[in-house]
Structure formats: structure tokens, C-alpha cells
């Protein structure tokens, strides 16, 4: 893997973009790598643009704040692209050469111009219907973020499945202090499952399923960030 992977997650408030970044960083931490995560700094609003960032690397990370030049961009909702619900326009602004874009959608969304721009930069674009995977495996769309991080891990191997499992247990299995909107969603997802163990297991199953889908795609789509 590269010395540093900068991951930018663009979604809508309530989709778990912030939780995803925390999980990725926690997992990387458990893999013995250096990692930090942070949300976009602003007011949190349901269904409004939400962005979060994870930096994972083999050396101590100092860089703080928004990731302006990411290696990876994950798009959690088609509206990020179709309705411009993104902090940067276009959503892939700043993406590095040989980077990777993962989009939660069953069909292509990009315009001809966007496709060309990304091709010129040798950026891989992977569509996964993460919401469908979440509904099929976990039975709730609230687990879409799990599918997204699973896909990322499957393609890039930036974190291991074992580490993700441990991170999920830490995040949902223990007392966790979350801010208002996140705390409400934590409660909502807990109600979806009869037992906490079930929540952990279903989330992990979603991650694993998407990991496999991502890994298969990566075999035929070489880009620099893929292992």
C-alpha cells in the first residue's frame, strides 16, 4: 500500500459518513497503521451535504482538516452528484492521479465530460448498490455505510476485515459518546435489531459481502490505490 491514503466521504446527513470515517480509522489503528478521522466542520443537518475524512498511512499523520487532494472519494448518495449536494464542485475536485471513486448507485451517473476528466487522470470508478446490499444482508438501509467501507476495503485492502470487525464491536458494542444527530441514529439502528450481537453480526456480514464484491472488481480494474 501507499505511504498514505486520503479518503474523502461525501454523503447526506444521516447516512453514516462520519461513522464510516471513524470506523475506517479505528480499523486501521487496530491493523497497526497510523490513522486519523474527522468530519467536515459545520452544522450537522439531516439530508444536507455531509462529508467526512479518513487518513490512513504507514507514518505518523499530521495533516488536519478537510481533504482537499484525496486518493479516494466515496459517494454515499446519488444526489451528491445529481443535485450537487457536495462541498466541492464537481464532487471529484482535487482527486489525485490514479485515484479511486466509489459510488453508491446501481447505474452510471457521470456525464461524458466527467467520465473523460476522470479517465484522463486514470481514476477508477466503481459503482456498487450499497443500499441494496445493506437491505439484502442486514435488512435495513441504515447499514449502507457498512457496505461502502466494505467495498473500499475489498478494493484497496487499506484495512483488514478482522480489524473492521473489531472496530465495529468497539463502536457499537460499547458505550459510545456521539453528538445529537448521530446519537439519534444510533438509537434507530439499535431498534432495528433485537439484540446488540445481532446488530454487530449483520453489520459485519454487510461489510464482508461488499468486501467480496469490491475485491472481484479490483481484480479487473487496476488503479494505483488498489493493491
Amino acid at each position: 500500500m501507499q505511504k498514505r491514503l486520503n479518503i474523502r466521504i461525501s454523503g447526506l446527513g444521516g447516512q453514516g459518513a462520519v461513522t464510516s470515517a471513524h470506523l475506517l480509522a479505528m480499523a486501521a489503528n487496530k491493523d497497526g497503521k497510523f490513522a486519523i478521522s474527522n468530519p467536515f466542520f459545520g452544522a450537522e443537518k439531516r439530508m444536507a451535504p455531509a462529508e467526512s475524512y479518513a487518513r490512513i498511512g504507514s507514518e505518523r499523520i499530521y495533516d488536519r482538516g478537510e481533504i482537499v487532494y484525496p486518493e479516494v472519494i466515496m459517494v454515499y448518495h446519488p444526489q451528491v452528484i445529481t443535485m450537487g449536494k457536495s462541498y466541492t464542485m464537481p464532487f471529484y475536485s482535487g482527486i489525485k492521479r490514479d485515484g479511486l471513486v466509489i459510488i453508491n448507485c446501481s447505474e452510471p451517473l457521470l456525464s461524458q465530460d466527467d467520465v473523460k476528466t476522470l479517465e484522463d487522470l486514470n481514476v477508477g470508478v466503481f459503482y456498487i448498490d450499497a443500499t441494496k446490499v445493506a437491505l439484502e444482508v442486514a435488512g435495513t438501509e441504515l447499514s449502507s455505510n457498512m457496505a461502502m467501507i466494505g467495498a473500499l476495503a475489498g478494493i484497496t485492502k487499506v484495512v483488514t476485515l478482522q480489524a473492521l470487525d473489531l472496530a465495529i464491536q468497539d463502536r457499537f458494542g460499547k458505550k459510545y459518546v456521539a453528538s445529537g444527530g448521530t446519537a439519534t441514529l444510533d438509537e434507530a439502528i439499535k431498534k432495528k435489531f433485537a439484540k446488540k450481537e445481532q446488530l454487530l453480526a449483520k453489520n459485519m456480514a454487510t461489510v464482508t459481502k461488499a468486501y467480496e464484491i469490491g475485491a472481484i472488481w479490483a481484480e479487473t480494474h487496476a488503479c494505483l490505490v488498489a493493491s
Partner: protein
Amino acid sequence: MESTSVIGTANKKGQIFTEPRKLFFEAPRVPVFLTGSEVIKEAIRRASVDVMVAYPITPQSEAAALCGELFAEGYVGDYMRGESEFAVMSQCAGAAFGGARVFTTTAGPGTLRAFENFPMWAGARLPIQVIVTCRGINSPLSIQPDTLEISFLLDTGMMVWHAETAQDFFDWILMGYIVSEQPDVHLPLAVCCDGFFVTHTKDTINLTPADMTLPPYDPYRSPVPCMDMECPPVRMMRDPFVMKSNYISYATHASWQQEVRAACERSRKHTIPLLGGLIETENVDAEILIVASGTAVSQGREAIRLLNAEGLKVGLVKVKSLRPFPTEEIRQATKNAKWIIVPEFNVVGWLAREVRAIIDRNDRVIVGPHVAGGMTMPPEVIVEKIHQVIKAGKGELVHG
């Protein structure tokens, strides 16, 4: 005297009052993965705080609320929400006048609303600690990080430190009380950070054990009497200054204001061994130096990595303490530098102004790059600035 006698005994939560140097340098450290706000809570858990006053303002609300949990758990003597930052800082003052170890937090507009209190704290020699998680203060509304407010704090008479990371925060909050409460210092301390960049980022922090805590504050070591009717004198003055000749008033105020600033300078001897100096340096023999404080240091470190990869050597001066200002240290560290780049997260460049004021050949100082209003400063921007300096300068001086 009481504070030394409690060493080794337990408080009501079973935490052992531990000799500060032992707590800082010898106690085992455990790495944990936390946000900066959670780290503030963990520091306060170990700080034997008597009174904390809170008020919600982004981005410090989370830290202030988390400290409320510590009160609920019994780690903090009393905790309340004040009605505004002006009131909060006054409530803190009242508690400190009454002999309590006091903690509070604020940010941006809150800092400015509270402002009348800060010179009062310093003049009254109240060793209150305030965390300032800097945020924009201009109109239109910004809730984003921006360090402009630090510039206002510099001449209050308070000590002002600027943390780079959550690890700095954890260590400095605890060390800060020890420095602040020295009888020959006894001043308030603002521990600042760039809001969000530190408070909302999850990072690995090494914590001391939760069952070890700072010895309590002993208000009877204060250079001014504690207002608790337990110590003499019971009457402060024979006459108020303003009713005597104005010359007596002038003389009193002038000497006291100098004494407050002298106390701030005296804090050096306590701070240097704890913080490992007022500045930290790397490769200061390089021709190009980055001098920065707070998150700008972190971005500077990343820029240096990128420049190293190009084969360019760049040194770094991290300014930890802004008051007292490390004048001699910076003069020494920059004496061989050809260019001194001062990246800042504010529009005015107050650190560059401070550095320019104290070094010779100060046209070596390149003011910037700057970001303001909340944006981060990508390391690439600092790299670009340094490329410009080298290219335009070709060995000559360039002005930012």
C-alpha cells in the same frame, strides 16, 4: 502545604493524588483512539477540578458537555451552565476568588463576548484555565476554525499556549495548572487550539492512568488573599486608590500591571521543564524555516515531508507558548535562516507580526500563506509558497 501532604492518598473517586512530575513523566501511558473533545474530558478527569462552568458554542460544546459527565460521575466538584460567556468567565472568577481550581472552555465569538473578564482575571491573579477552541469571529457568520481570536488574547496579561495536537492538550491542561498555580506566577492560562482540527479529529493519544490525579489546588499559596474569610487580612486597603491622589493610583496600577507581566515571564522556569521548552525545533540549520503554532505546525510538518521527497531541506520551529513569548529561543533558532515562512490560519498574520518584531533582518520573514474562515491549509499550499520564494528569490529576499 496541604497539597503536598495529600500525595499518595485517595480522593473520593479512589484516584491517588500523584506528584505532578511523576504523573507527567513516570506514570505508564496507554494509547487510546479519541477525539480532541474526549481528550479534554480525560485530562479534566485527572486534574482535581473544583468548579467547571460551561456554555454551548461550536466547536467546544462537546468537550464542555463531556466534562459535565465527569461531574455526574463525581470527578468534578461542581458544574453548571452559565448564561453567556461573559457571565461564565465571571462565574469562573467568582469560584477562583473563592479558592477553587476552575476550568472552562470557549471559542470564537464566545471568547470576544467574555473578553472584559480576561484582563480582570490576570489583574486579580486568578489561576483559571480556559480552553480556547478557536473559531472565526468575523461577520458573516462562521462556525469554522480560524485563529484570529488568539491575537486579542496576547495582551491580556494571561499566559497563552497554542496546542498543535490533542496529545499537547492532554499534557498541557494538566501541566498548565501546575504552572498557573505557582505562587510566583499565579495567572490565568488560555490553552488554545485550532477548533475542529483538534477537537473533532480522532487521533491516537497516550493517556496517564485514570486512577492518578493532580494534587488539589492550595489557595493559601496565592500571592493575593483568597476571598473565603479564612485568611487575613480581613480588610484589604485603608483607602481605595481612586480616592487618594491620582499619582498613587497611577503608581499602583503601573507597578501592578508590570508585576502581572513579570509573573508571566517568571512562568518560563516552570513551563520549560514541563513542556520541554517554549519552542520545539527540527533542522534549524536549514536555509528555509517554517515557524508556526497550532495546526499550522502539523500542516508544516506535512509540507516538509513533501519537500524532503523533492530533496529540499526545510527546518521547523513549533511555537508552543505565545505568552510568555519565546523571544530569545526564536532569535537563536532563526539566526541562520535565509527565509522564515510563517503559515497561519488567520487573515492578519499575528504570529508573523510577533516574529518580525523580535528578530534582526526581519525582511527574512515571509508572511503566509494564510487561510481564514475555516478552510484547512493543504500542505501543498505551503510547498507552493516555498517554491515561489525560491524561484522569485533565486537567493534574494522575497516579501510575502
